């Protein structure tokens, strides 16, 4: 238990008096929710106190989002009940949390890009003067909120022109504007730089000191330890335990989450450089509108190394990926692969020559969801001699290699006929990894390969990347996950606004230093190409 200052204690008392007599703002009692193939929540009970930051941790599919959707009124439980300030939550159709002081901030922001920050904040509950929008009142209310909670946003800029951190502040202001006393945040730090994360955490502290309750869903256990007062662990739809963070630590939480102890994977930090596999020279890419998406990008990937490219999403990583695998034509520059000029080669030519890739968006780019698992395991490899003759597919060898890959990569369920769309995210990623790595490529380009995966699956994918490098192949790892970049890479570069700002040996950089480079504040140290 944290010691409360007199001031904050009295403020909290006021609120409690105003809101409800008990110490709990939300009591979840025996919630069960079934979906066609899974039980998302099984007899879940949970108490959340006024004014605390309550972290909810668990792997993908543990039932966190379902539970939050039930609290918010998006989903109805099959049994059990939820007490909000001691009163049962209405279960009627039209119930939505925001009308009862619950605000939800999704991982993917729900903002309108062409509207200004202020317009987005007041949207749906605009103060009016007759039929007109009362901009003055709206602005002063929002400005008061910003002052009270120490958040700063340029209210007159369009959302499209804001950084991700600012967009998130707009989301927070939006729920505060609707006077949410309870704020649910779904993986709020997934898209932030370390600096933005720090500023978010100080905002969360202010909010909770101001008597607001925060429910914080996350994978990242260090963050739980840093910002939360209480933590609840969910596993496979059940509550494994609720405890004050002072009585636990990150390693113990990880074990509770996964149900077994976790081995950590790390790359070889100071590996010697082999010969170049991929050399990229002064690549630029123009958008249709004429502005540059990539500017003068140069780097080399050597045999036996993992080159990590860090950066906040949307700084040209996707474009770089597309240029490298042949989906986009650079307006300038040269791509050399295994000593051959491949700048204008087609994707198929590159794949044949020994490239493989794991795309960031596995659903859009990596898989055909309506195809079976075994069909996905040969996607793009269906012309290889092992899988097809000139005309016909070799069904038997496709089946055999599917069985083998399912076993080697522990894909669940082990049913090669199941549609890829029915697999969990982690298993979808295993299908892609199995397909691409079993090509035995000279170069593996992996873009956000562990995004959205739970700890176990993520570690497995990371292990595969390290193994590739150990086998003397080149690996290019594009990732927004800083700690992933830091633990796996031999060298690290940062992408910022379509440029690579400095490539350094991983041993010479700190997370803070990378964070500053990701935010465009510093240019990084010496270059080592």
């Amino acid at each position, binding site marked *: 238990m944290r010691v409360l200052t007199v001031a904050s204690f009295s403020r909290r008392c006021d609120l409690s008096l105003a809101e409800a007599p008990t110490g709990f703002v939300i009591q979840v009692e025996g919630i069960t929710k079934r*979906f066609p193939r899974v039980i*998302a929540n099984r007899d879940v009970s949970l108490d959340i106190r006024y004014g605390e930051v309550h972290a909810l941790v668990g792997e*993908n*599919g*543990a*039932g*966190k*989002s*379902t539970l939050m*959707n039930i609290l918010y009124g*998006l989903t109805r439980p099959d049994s059990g009940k939820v007490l909000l300030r001691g009163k049962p939550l209405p279960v009627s159709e*039209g119930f*939505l949390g*925001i009308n009862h002081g619950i605000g939800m901030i999704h*991982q*993917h*922001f*729900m*903002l*309108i*890009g062409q509207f200004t920050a202020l317009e987005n904040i007041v*949207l*749906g509950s605009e103060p009016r003067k007759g039929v007109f929008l009362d901009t003055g009142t709206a602005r002063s209310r929002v400005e008061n909120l910003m002052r009270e909670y120490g958040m700063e946003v340029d209210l007159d800029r369009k959302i499209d022109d804001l950084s991700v951190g600012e967009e998130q502040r707009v989301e927070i202001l939006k729920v505060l504007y609707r006077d949410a006393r309870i704020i649910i945040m779904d993986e709020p730090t997934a898209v932030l730089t370390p600096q933005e994360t720090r500023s978010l955490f100080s905002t969360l502290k202010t909010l909770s000191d101001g008597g607001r309750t925060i429910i914080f869903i996350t994978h990242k256990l260090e963050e739980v330890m840093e910002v939360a007062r209480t933590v609840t662990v969910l596993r496979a739809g059940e509550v494994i335990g609720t405890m004050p963070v002072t009585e636990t630590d990150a390693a113990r939480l990880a074990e509770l989450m996964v149900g077994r102890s976790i081995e950590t994977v790390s790359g070889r930090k100071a590996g010697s450089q082999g010969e170049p596999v991929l050399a990229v020279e002064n690549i630029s890419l123009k958008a249709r509108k004429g502005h540059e998406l990539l500017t003068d990008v140069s780097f080399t990937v050597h045999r036996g190394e993992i080159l990590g490219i860090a950066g906040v999403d949307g700084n040209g990583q996707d474009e770089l990926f597309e240029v490298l*695998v042949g*989906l986009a034509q650079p307006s300038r520059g040269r791509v050399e692969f295994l000593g051959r000029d491949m700048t204008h080669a*087609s*994707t*198929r*030519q*590159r*794949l*044949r020559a020994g490239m493989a*890739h794991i*795309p960031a968006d596995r*659903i*859009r*780019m*990596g*898989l*055909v*969801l*309506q*195809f079976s698992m075994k*069909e996905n395991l040969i*996607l*793009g490899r*269906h*012309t290889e001699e092992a899988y*097809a003759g000139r*005309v*016909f*597919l070799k*069904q038997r060898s496709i089946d055999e290699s599917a069985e083998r890959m399912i076993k080697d990569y522990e894909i669940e369920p082990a*049913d090669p*006929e*199941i*549609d890829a*769309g*029915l697999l969990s995210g982690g298993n979808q990623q295993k299908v892609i990894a199995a397909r691409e790595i079993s090509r035995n490529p000279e170069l593996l380009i992996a873009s956000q390969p562990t995004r959205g995966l739970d700890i176990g699956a993520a570690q497995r994918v990371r292990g595969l990347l390290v193994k590739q490098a150990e086998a003397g192949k080149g690996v290019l790892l594009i990732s927004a996950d800083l700690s992933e970049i830091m633990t796996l890479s031999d060298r690290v570069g940062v992408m910022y606004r379509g440029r690579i700002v400095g490539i350094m040996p991983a041993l010479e950089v700190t997370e803070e230093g990378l964070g500053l480079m990701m935010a465009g504040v510093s240019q990084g140290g010496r270059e080592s190409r």
Partner: protein
Amino acid sequence: MKPRVPMKTGVESKLSGLLPPLVSLLLAAAVSAVILLLVGENPFHIGSVMLSGSLGSLRSIANTLEEATPLIFTGLCVAVALKCGLFNIGGEGQLVIGAFAAAWVGVKLTGLDPVTHVTVCILIAGLAGALWALIAGVLKARFGAHEVINTIMLNYIAFILTNYLVTLPYFKKPGQIPQTFDIAPSAALPRLSFLYQYTRLNIGFVLAIVAVILVYVILEKTRLGFELKSVGFNPTASRASGISVVRNMVIAMAIGGFLAGMAGSERVLGVHRYFISPFPFGYGFAGIAVALLGRNNPFGVLLAAIFFGALASGGAQVDIETHVPRELVTVIQAIVILFVACEYLVRRMGLMQLVDLMRRMGLRRRGAGAHE
């Protein structure tokens, strides 16, 4: 929550895939019965006349299959394109071009033995249809011009072009009617007279069944089919896997055009024995309904085409035997199509509700991330 896409696991799908069309048919039958009651007819009587007119005798069965033959081809034409994510509404035009080509070669090429002559006629007709479809395919692949618009426009062009060509003295049989000379006897597709003496059912029906099997093999067993379907389901992932989207779209259109062209040759070589202007209309469009009812599955298309053939031959019988106008049969066909289309709507309802809920929240999703 998982994104909702029609999905299946193994065997379970094959059965559950059959059920929805059957339910649609039953519902359509029920609504049709109500309509018949409203116009003061006895639905059971009409039903039995339709049944006997379509399946009651060898003659009726032959009529049904004869009506079904071109629909099998045009249904396959639409299905192949749909598998590749394209909506080919041009079956009509590709058919008429193929029909004219078959008549041309059938009339003008002489002195061949029947097997060669028929084969040449059908191949040329298929190629002509494929070429016609290719125009739309290339426009789509090269310039992104929408295939629905292009194929519709090409339908008009095909009809007007053949209407004109048939009036040229080189083709036209002297007389009042704008039709070509009769094809050479060696170009005629033999009729299956052993079933029923006066039937127009011909070897073309057997060819249609062969086409069904071929299309099935192409789609399910070959590299080409794998790529076509991959492009149809997810062009982005296909491109990223080194599959040429453009090439596969063009090929899918060409295969469809070839099949529609074959339908035209079957009509000319097996049924009419000449090309007449305007050419009998509707097989191409009916092919769309056949493909939908058959769920884009070649064997489903075969069954659906026979079902539509039965409606047509049964409808003709109703026209002869009762006071119910033939148009009412068309209404019943339309009802069937409506219910099939509705089934697709109902499947998407789950998604719609979600969208509706989000709208009520006043929220709009940016990006397409899915929850757990």
